[in-house]
């Protein structure tokens, strides 16, 4: 896969602009998933996808074949998402679902027998998802970015620190704080489930 990415990049670099389509086809869905997990907003995620591919195209001379093209692309997407969220916050716009951890989901979890199945369980599962969304929205932008890169993208703390321009300790503590907040919000729910 990475070999194919290298070939496509080499073709673009040598002037074959259409070869860039191969890279867009291959990575656009995963960039969208990353962007959505970071922004929690579909429209913003589409903006991140397009901007990521435009920025990557303009900086393609910087990519080194020994590193993964996907990881490099996610780095651009993560930084752009972070900038976007900061700009939104600065200008007082609200983008993510602004709810906190879902108290109703917690009540429902306490009311349901753990082995229950069927519509109620499905409803409960939806509420858990809402609760996770709310808990993620409680994180700071940096915590959320670091956590998403670690948890969903499987990047190491060292890779995250490089991607976000943080020290290793700062990246690590962003993840610790994120996990701590998530645990506080979700632990009552998962304990009831178990």
């Amino acid at each position: 896969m990475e070999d194919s990415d290298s070939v496509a990049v080499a073709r673009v670099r040598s002037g074959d602009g259409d070869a860039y389509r191969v890279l867009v086809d291959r990575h656009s869905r995963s960039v969208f998933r990353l962007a959505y997990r970071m922004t929690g907003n579909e429209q913003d995620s589409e903006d991140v996808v397009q901007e990521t591919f435009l920025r990557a195209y303009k900086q393609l001379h910087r990519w080194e074949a020994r590193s993964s093209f996907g990881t490099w692309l996610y780095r651009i997407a993560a930084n752009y998402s972070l900038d976007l969220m900061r700009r939104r916050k600065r200008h007082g716009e609200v983008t993510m679902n602004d709810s906190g951890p879902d108290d109703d989901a917690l009540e429902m979890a306490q009311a349901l027998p753990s082995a229950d199945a069927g519509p109620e369980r499905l409803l409960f599962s939806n509420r858990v998802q809402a609760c996770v969304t709310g808990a993620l929205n409680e994180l700071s932008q940096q915590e959320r970015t670091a956590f998403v890169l670690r948890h969903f993208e499987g990047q190491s703390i060292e890779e995250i620190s490089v991607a976000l321009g943080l020290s290793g300790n700062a990246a690590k503590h962003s993840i610790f704080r994120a996990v701590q907040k998530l645990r506080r919000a979700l632990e009552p729910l998962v304990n009831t489930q178990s």
Partner: protein
Amino acid sequence: MNNVNEKHLNEEQFVLYYYGEDASGIQESVAEHLGECESCRTAYQTLQRVLNSVDSLPVPERGAEYESDVWGAVERRLPRRGKSFLSRWFATGWKPISAAAAMALVVIAAFLAGRGAGRGSLPLIMHKPAAQIANSGAENGAVRERVLLVAVGDHLERSQTVLVELANAGAPKNGSLDISYEQRAAEDLLESNRLYRQTAVSTGDESTRAMLEELEMVLLEIAHSPSAVSEKQLDELRKQIEDRGIIFKVKVFGKQVEQREAAPSNGNSGSSL
């Protein structure tokens, strides 16, 4: 990570273990401890369940034509082919940043005019009817400060992007690395930086002045570097950035600006940016 087997594990150790981070051989020692300590095992299982539940976060599905749609949108915005990457980028990508520098001038001129001349010369960039603005001197000051805070916040964010790009640039290939992008960005940022610094001087805001002065020295270094740098030159630039701790300072300062933007206005224009 010392004595990991003698006392209970903490949450940080759980997190590193869960994600397979192998700091100081933590995987082996934590696994061993979990095998022996029921209390830690229970705590870790709870954390596992919490983190596993995060995987349920839904992501909207994209349609079958998604890739084609993205390509269509991206292709329309790609620079025209046939020119070099950089010439295309300079032809398109720099306009917004240059406009930002011009905007900085407008914001500062408005800010200073508003402070110095009182009600008669309020900034025009505030999206309010002039009569409404003229009715409240305190509100004018607060609005002026807010406009300036937003502008300085954006300026710091752009500066940070350039510094981080340079600090993280890979090793030069074929003996040199093209940093003309950062160089042009630094040149442009220098203009706005000088204006903001002069504003800080005129308003007596010493901490802002000092931070912008330091940032200016680094931007100056970058702007005056050759557009293609050798490994040694790149290392020197990085050293400048690291020695001054400028990325950290810009981040901290940017955060303070952000907090002040977020703070409810008290109608006082204040004495600092």
